[in-house]
């Protein structure tokens, strides 16, 4: 029986999950402290949590519920996005529980299982629980086996839903991703697995679909007839920080290209889904991921880079090889640029230039669609010298928004033309700040909305793009670039060979 008090037209009433528990493995980690616990507070503050809701922390600590609650209080208060209100916290207090133990400790997982059963009655959470894996991938199999052994992952046995949330990296190549997917899908059912790509929780990323499919202005020119090329940039000004061990084994291509950037590409390039249903959107994304073609000669169509020492944002930055924990002879890339193609009628012949890197001049993520120049310019050639490609830029972060760049006459007595930018910023037109990506995604997991989560097939298909590149790069050394520069010279040359240049993002 549907809820008679809810009506799709009643949009004042927020979407609220069913009563449930959020079980966080690795609750003492960075992600849990800085993102997940604050996100729970923010959701509570916005009134988006059900009456029966429990956060159940799991970590190797000798804590009682009170200690955990205190720790959660401090971190939620320090990192919450929305204003702090004690009465909101008071509602969460008493609903934060902790189970201590190691991942291979059978007794600890038995306790966890028992606790979930008890909470069913004491806190009215029903049989519903989402397990959030905020842990290193190496620990996944152990925890999954524990969940399978205790039957905690079994929807039927629990009389509710049991969902699992995994963070990237989803494997390190196709075969490891497949093994991981098989394992997760084996313990949980495929549709209960939520892979978090936090980029997809960002407003602008969702706005790509609105921009493309709700307007009649852009779709007619969204193809190889009008589009010259597409540039997708994800630049970070920070270095690898304390993640040397992870990063050196991973590299930029596996870290961000495989997930964030290919997902952005899929959203920009996919065909219109039949409906906004999760499975329809996934089907279209998968189709376009399958159509991706690699450069014929990977060495010519891709560039890897590694940062040297330099200056970023007024501060001295260490070179990658000098970072603590990085081997002196490391050949891991901190920058990658690649020219991809999409083999379908819409995009044949349009290059998709994708770049990502650390220690670049500023933090920015954007998708720029560069349109072809006008076939004929009835102006004096000197008047149009400053005229570039028309561009539509979707800025993902920071300052989420959309920029349209086109030529215009410079006021004055001569017919001089120059590019100008029409800038739409979310913050300016709608709201000061949109919800943090994790807030949105945690809520979607609890509600069971899979729209913003890539599925196993997409993850595997993305590895099919990355694997041949990694193979070709075996034994090569990345090009050096100074910290605070827009990547190695070779990346500029790669575009220059085709008569193009990178947009200064």
């Amino acid at each position, binding site marked *: *029986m549907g*809820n*008679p*008090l*809810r*009506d799709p*037209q*009643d*949009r*004042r*009433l*927020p979407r*609220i999950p*069913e*009563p449930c528990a959020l079980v966080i493995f690795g609750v003492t980690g960075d992600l849990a402290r800085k993102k997940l616990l604050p996100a729970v507070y923010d959701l*509570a503050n916005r*009134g988006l949590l*059900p*009456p*029966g809701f429990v956060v159940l922390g799991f970590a190797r600590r000798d804590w009682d519920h009170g200690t955990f609650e205190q720790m959660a209080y401090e971190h939620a208060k320090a990192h919450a996005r929305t204003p702090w*209100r004690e*009465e*909101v916290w*008071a*509602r969460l207090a008493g609903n934060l529980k902790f189970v201590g133990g190691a991942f291979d400790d059978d007794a600890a997982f038995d306790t966890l299982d028992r606790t979930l059963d008890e909470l069913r009655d*004491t806190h*009215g959470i*029903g049989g519903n629980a989402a397990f959030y894996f905020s842990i290193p991938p190496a620990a996944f199999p152990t925890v999954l086996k524990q969940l399978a052994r205790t039957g905690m992952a079994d929807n039927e046995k629990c009389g509710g839903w049991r969902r699992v949330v995994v963070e990237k990296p989803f494997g390190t190549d196709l075969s490891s991703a497949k093994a991981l997917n098989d394992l997760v899908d084996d313990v949980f059912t495929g549709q209960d697995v939520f892979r978090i790509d936090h980029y997809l929780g960002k407003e602008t990323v969702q706005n790509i679909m609105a921009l493309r499919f709700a307007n009649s202005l852009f779709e007619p020119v969204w193809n190889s007839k009008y589009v010259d090329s597409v540039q997708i940039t994800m630049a970070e000004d920070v270095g690898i920080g304390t993640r040397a061990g992870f990063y050196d084994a991973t590299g930029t291509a596996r870290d961000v290209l495989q997930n964030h950037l290919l997902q952005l590409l899929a959203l920009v390039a996919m065909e219109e889904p039949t409906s906004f249903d999760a499975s329809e959107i996934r089907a279209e994304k998968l189709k376009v991921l399958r159509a991706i073609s690699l450069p014929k000669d990977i060495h010519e169509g891709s560039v890897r880079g590694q940062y040297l020492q330099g200056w970023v944002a007024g501060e001295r930055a260490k070179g990658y090889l000098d970072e603590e924990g990085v081997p002196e002879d490391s050949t891991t890339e901190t920058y990658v640029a690649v020219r991809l193609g999409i083999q379908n009628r819409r995009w044949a012949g349009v290059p998709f230039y994708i770049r990502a890197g650390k220690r670049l001049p500023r933090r920015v993520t954007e998708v720029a669609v560069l349109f072809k120049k006008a076939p004929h310019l009835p102006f004096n050639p000197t008047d149009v010298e400053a005229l570039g490609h028309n561009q539509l830029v979707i800025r993902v972060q920071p300052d989420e928004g959309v920029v349209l760049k086109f030529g215009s006459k410079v006021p004055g007595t001569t017919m001089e033309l120059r590019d100008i930018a029409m*800038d*739409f*910023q979310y*913050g*300016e*037109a*709608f*709201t*000061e700040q949109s919800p943090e990506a994790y807030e949105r995604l945690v809520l979607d997991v609890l509600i069971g909305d899979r729209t913003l989560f890539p599925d196993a097939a997409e993850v595997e298909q993305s590895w099919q793009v990355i694997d041949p590149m990694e193979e070709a790069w075996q034994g090569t050394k990345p090009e050096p670039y100074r910290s605070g520069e827009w990547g190695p010279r070779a990346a500029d040359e790669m575009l220059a060979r085709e008569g193009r240049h990178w947009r200064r993002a």
Partner: protein
Amino acid sequence: MIGLWDTTGNEVVKALAAERRSAGGVASGMALSLIVVVDEKRVREAEAAATIATSQHPCRLLMVVRSDFERPINRLDAEIVVGGRLGPCEAVVMRMYGRLALHAESVVMPLLVPDVPVVTWWHGEPPELIANDFLGVVADRRITDTGQADDRISALRQRAADYAPGDTDLAWTRITPWRTLLAGAFDTLDTKVTGATIVAPASDPTAALMSGWLAARLGIQPRLEATADFPRMRSVSLQCANGEVLTLTREDSMATFARTGHAERNLPLVRRPTGEELAEELRRLDSDQIYAEALSAYAGVSDLDGRPHKRVHIWKDPVLASRTPVATPAPAPAASTPEGGSTDG
């Protein structure tokens, strides 16, 4: 900030353009114009609310203070604020005196952002007929607040009589948190509700709308139990067919949720400042059918949603009305009769 004393509408338009230009970097991403109709003594209150609302919905804020209709001299004073004190918005606070105050739209219309929605909010006693106020006629969304009326219940009934799609009332906005908690309680319930009891002060329009909403959604006739002990709505309880009773009771900024056979639960039920309520209103710019249903169920006026969206302005001169107190002009069916210039002032 620019202050313009004894000025004209055109001067205000020019000064706003100049101020935008000198503020620099002000792009034209304005998504709406908000007209606030307010009396002099409540301007500060309205500004405080608008500051909160505009921080969530940047807009062009046009605050209109009208007074002294009988004054022989017309006068317009305007204050222009771009960014700063009133949050991320472009604000024009206008004070109009004399006969000009009856033609506020002549100053306001050129200041509206082209082709984006217009919202008008009356901070004070709601107008009897919105059609009498051109600032309401021009708006796509109209927000009244029956909570501020002298006789709040009859003001609410008047809102039903005068309703057009696109109207809402802050008394309705005020119960969104209540409705959220009630709907949340229902998610786990699969039994029929047979009755409801609402405990609230007799003159509380929010309780009236709550009863209308429950009646419309559940097909029951909720009982309103008047209380003098609490200043605001105190509790809502629902009786189910299987004998269970769900009760939601407000205690300060918390609500206690009790259900037969379950432990009591405390949930936040925070009273929001007016600005937050206004911000909720600005989130949706289409008509609120659920409000129409609740209002219609409470006031017993049917087919509110079928009424035309656009009102036609009906000229009404408050000066003449006060001179002839016996006159009861039936709402003129004809189009507006604009005041002739020769008889003016």
